[in-house]
C-alpha cells in the first residue's frame, strides 16, 4: 500500500431495489486527503453510493475496497466511515458532550480519555461551554458543529457528508463551507461530500463527480466541469451556460455565460442575434436572458456597469459573441 494508491475504490458497483436501479455501474477511485463532491439531481444514486461506502446498504454487484481491503461484507459498525446526516441524527436523549463521546464509548475508550478527546474537539469547533447543553437548546449552526465533532472525534481517515448544509440558512452555509474546507485541509483526511448544490460542491471540492440516472456523467475539477461539460446532461445540470449547435450536424458546443459578450450593434460574422428577455442578479454578476434563433434561450453574465451601459429593454435586439477558445465541443449527448 503506498500513499498514491486510492483510499476508496468502487469497481463495477451496482445497487438495485427490486426492479429499480439506484446505481447502475460505478467505477470510482477516491484518493487520500481528497475532497470529493458527488453531485446530481434527486434520485441520481449519489446518496446510495455514500450509504454503500458507509455499509448502510450492501452492493448488489461489484466491489468496494477501502485501503485495498474488500468491504462488501463488513458491517457498518465495523467500518471507520463516520457520516454526517442531512438531519444530523444527533441523539436527543444525550447532551452535547455525550453525543460527541458516543463513538469513543462504542470503541471502548476509557472514561477520562473520552472526556479529554471530546472536550478537545468541542473546543476546536467553538463549542466550549456547551458540553452539558441538550441538543434542543442549540442553534442550527451549533448542532452542525456537534455532528462534525461527533464524527471526527475518533480520528477517522475519511468523513462522509450527506447534504449536511441543506437545512441551514444561507449565511450559515457560507460560514460552514469555510469551517469544512479548513478542517479538511488541517486534518488531511478524505471528505466525500454528497450534495445537489453546485455552489457548495464547486466552492469546496478538489474533484466533482456528477451523477445521473445511477451512473457517473463526468468527473473533474470544478473548473473543468463548468467550462468543459462532457455532455448535455452535465451542461444542463451545471447551468449558467449556453448549449448551441456545433459546426457539424449533431454536434453541440457549450459556452459559459460569463464568456458571452453582449453588444448593441452587429459586430459581424459569428454573432448570434438575440432578443433581450430579462435579467437576474446572481451575486457574482448579473445574468441576462435572451431569446436567440429558433427560440433557444441564451444567457450572458455581465457586470453592473455593463448592464447600465447596455440599458436593455425587453424585446430589444442584441448580438452575442464569444472568443473561439471559450466554446467547448461536447462529446456526446
Amino acid at each position: 500500500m503506498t500513499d498514491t494508491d486510492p483510499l476508496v475504490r468502487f469497481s463495477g458497483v451496482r445497487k438495485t431495489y427490486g426492479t429499480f436501479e439506484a446505481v447502475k455501474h460505478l467505477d470510482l477511485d477516491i484518493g487520500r486527503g481528497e475532497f470529493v463532491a458527488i453531485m446530481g439531481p434527486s434520485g441520481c444514486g449519489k446518496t446510495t453510493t455514500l450509504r454503500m461506502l458507509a455499509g448502510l446498504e450492501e452492493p448488489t454487484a461489484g466491489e468496494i475496497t477501502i485501503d485495498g481491503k474488500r468491504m462488501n461484507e463488513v458491517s457498518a459498525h465495523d467500518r471507520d466511515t463516520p457520516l454526517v446526516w442531512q438531519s444530523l441524527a444527533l441523539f436527543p436523549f444525550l447532551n452535547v458532550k455525550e453525543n460527541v463521546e458516543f463513538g469513543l464509548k462504542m470503541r471502548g475508550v476509557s472514561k477520562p480519555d473520552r472526556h479529554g478527546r471530546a472536550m478537545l474537539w468541542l473546543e476546536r469547533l467553538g463549542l466550549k461551554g456547551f458540553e452539558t447543553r441538550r441538543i434542543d437548546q442549540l442553534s442550527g449552526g451549533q448542532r452542525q458543529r456537534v455532528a462534525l465533532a461527533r464524527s471526527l472525534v475518533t480520528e477517522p481517515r475519511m468523513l462522509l457528508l450527506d447534504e449536511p448544509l441543506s437545512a441551514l440558512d444561507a449565511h450559515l452555509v457560507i460560514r460552514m463551507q469555510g469551517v469544512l474546507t479548513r478542517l479538511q485541509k488541517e486534518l488531511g483526511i478524505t471528505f466525500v461530500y454528497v450534495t445537489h448544490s453546485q455552489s457548495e460542491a464547486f466552492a469546496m471540492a478538489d474533484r466533482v463527480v456528477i451523477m445521473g440516472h445511477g451512473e457517473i456523467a463526468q468527473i473533474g475539477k470544478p473548473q473543468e466541469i463548468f467550462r468543459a461539460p462532457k455532455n448535455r446532461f452535465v451542461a444542463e445540470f451545471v447551468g449558467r451556460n449556453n448549449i448551441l449547435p456545433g459546426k457539424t450536424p449533431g454536434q453541440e458546443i457549450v459556452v459559459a455565460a460569463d464568456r458571452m459578450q453582449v453588444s448593441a450593434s452587429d459586430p459581424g460574422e459569428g454573432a448570434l442575434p438575440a432578443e433581450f428577455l430579462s435579467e437576474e442578479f446572481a451575486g457574482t454578476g448579473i445574468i441576462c436572458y435572451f431569446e436567440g434563433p429558433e427560440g433557444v434561450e441564451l444567457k450572458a453574465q455581465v457586470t453592473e456597469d455593463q448592464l447600465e451601459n447596455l440599458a436593455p429593454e425587453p424585446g430589444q435586439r442584441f448580438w452575442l459573441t464569444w472568443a473561439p477558445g471559450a466554446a467547448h465541443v461536447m462529446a456526446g449527448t
Partner: protein
Amino acid sequence: MSKRFDAYPYVWRLPLLIWQGLFFVGPLILMVAMSFWLVRNYRMEPDFVLKNWDRMLGRDYFWNAYWVTLWRATLAGVLASLIAFPASYALAFRVSETTRRWAIFFLIVPFFTSYLVRVYAWQVLLAESGPINAVLGFGGLGPFTMLNSGFGAMVGYMTLVLPLVVILQTFSLAAIDRNLIEAAWNLGASPRETLFQVILPAARIGLILGATFAFILSFGDFVSPFYLGGSKPPTLSILIIDTTKSGQQWPRAAVVAIMMIATLFVAAFAAVGAAYGRRK
C-alpha cells in the same frame, strides 16, 4: 376596553368538567368522608372517628394484601414489558407497514370481548383436568396446579394488559427516527449496543407508559386474582369486596380504596417523572 366574554370554549369544556366532578371528585370526597363514619347495626352513620383507619392500617391482613397487590402489579408491569418487547420490536422494525397495521388491528380485537369472558376461558384451559394439562400429560408431565395460584392470577393480568403494552411499545418504537439507529451503527455501536444505548432511551416514554398501564390495571384488578388466583392470598380489591360483604363495612372499604388511589397517584407521578424527566 375589556374583552367580551366568550362562552364558546367554556361550553365545550363543560361536559368533561361535569363528568369528572360528578363521577370522580364527588365520590372521592364522599369516600374520604365515609372513611371516618361508623357502622352501627349494619347501618352507616356519619361521624368523625379514626377507628376505621386504625382498624385497617393496624392489621397485618391489610398490609399482607397491600404488599401482595403491590408486588404482583409490579411483577405484571415488568413481565408484560419483557414479554411484549420482542413482539413490539419485530412489529416496529422487521415487518412491512401493512403487516404492522393488521397486527395493531388484531391487538385491538381482544378488547371486543369482555375481559371476564376471557378469564373464564382461562379457567377451563388452566384447570387440573383441562386441555393444557392433558397435552402436558402426553409428554409425561404434570398435572400442574395452575388455577387458584399466583401463576393463575398472573396469566389473567397478562390477558388484560399484554395487547395494550404491545400497542404502546410498538408505536413508540416505530416513531424512532431511523437515522438515529443508523447513526449508532455508523459510530461503531453493535446491534446490542444500539438497542441499549439508542433504541431504549429513544423509546423511553412509550416503554415506561406501557409498564405503568400494566401496573395500574393489574393493581386495581379484581377479576384475575378472584377467578384465577382463587383469592389466595387476597389482594386489595378482594379485600374491599370482603369488607363490604361482611357487616356492611363500607367505611373500612373506603380506607382500603383511598390507600389504593394514593398508591396509584404516587406510581403514576413517579412514572411520568421518569418518562418525561430531564436527564441532568
